[in-house]
């Protein structure tokens, strides 16, 4: 398993999949058909999943594919198909001189934030799971141990939140008696 992760942390893998993720995200934003948008978003998620593997976070990578591309995006595509949106939900262009100004200001903000992140970070205090231990038992087990001990209450609250979301979705989309 370690050899696979080392294979994934070779530099070209990051650059290739980062570029692909940005390209797919741009195509997602600019495609007029919402179905194409959803499919490009799935491709972006797959690229990000590989990026998570380069960060040695294999559990998050698997969850990304399972939950995001497996569950959430199926929900999106299902609703798009159900509403039969097709072509009429088109990208509306706002032409005019303000457009170029806004692009310029957007890039200025991007550079500004980029410069703001150029502060020096230092490695934090040691946690409960030293890197040797994580390598020995695997990332998934480390997350499970932490999740079901220290983060047990947030975990339970998250399950209640999911239940409430489910009930809310059913109540909102249910046909009302007239």
């Amino acid at each position, binding site marked *: 398993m370690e050899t696979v992760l080392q294979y994934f942390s070779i*530099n070209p893998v*990051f650059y290739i999949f*980062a570029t692909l*993720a*940005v390209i797919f*995200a*741009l195509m*997602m*934003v600019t495609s007029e058909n*919402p179905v194409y*948008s*959803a499919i490009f*978003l799935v491709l*972006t998620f797959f690229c990000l999943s590989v*990026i*998570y593997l*380069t*960060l040695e*976070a294999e*559990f*998050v990578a698997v*969850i990304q594919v399972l*939950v*995001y591309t497996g569950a*959430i995006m199926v*929900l*999106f595509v299902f*609703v798009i198909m*159900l*509403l039969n949106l097709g072509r009429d*939900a088109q*990208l*509306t262009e*706002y032409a005019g001189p303000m457009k170029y100004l806004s692009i310029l200001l957007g890039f200025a903000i*991007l550079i500004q*934030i*980029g410069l703001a*992140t150029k502060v020096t970070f230092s*490695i*934090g205090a040691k*946690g*409960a*799971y*030293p890197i040797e231990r994580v390598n020995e038992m695997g990332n998934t087990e*480390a*997350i499970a141990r*932490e999740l079901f001990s220290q*983060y047990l209450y*947030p975990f339970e609250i*998250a399950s209640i*939140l*999911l239940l*409430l*979301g*489910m009930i*809310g*979705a*059913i109540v*909102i*989309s249910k046909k009302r008696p007239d």
Partner: protein
Amino acid sequence: MIGLYHYLMLSLILFCIGLAGLLIRRSVISMLISIEILFNAVNLAAVSFNRFLYPNSVTGQIFVVFIITVAAAEAAVALALVMAVYKNFKTVEVSGLTTLKG
């Protein structure tokens, strides 16, 4: 060597793309799809901070698990709202939803 800044830059670029999509799209579903990109940019930042600054803990990845949970709940409720809006207004364009304008 790939460092923290590379991952933060990727996260920043993805966040900006998602924000731009949120602002320029007029269909509610496309706006929700852009919000998912924003979630993913934040997740990437959390995991990379975890990997480079706190390599001896998994707290950042647990946060990502919770963010994905909340994103799933949000998507379910928001898509139900979209269905209800479509049923009442026969459109999902934000420019058509002006009932509260008075």
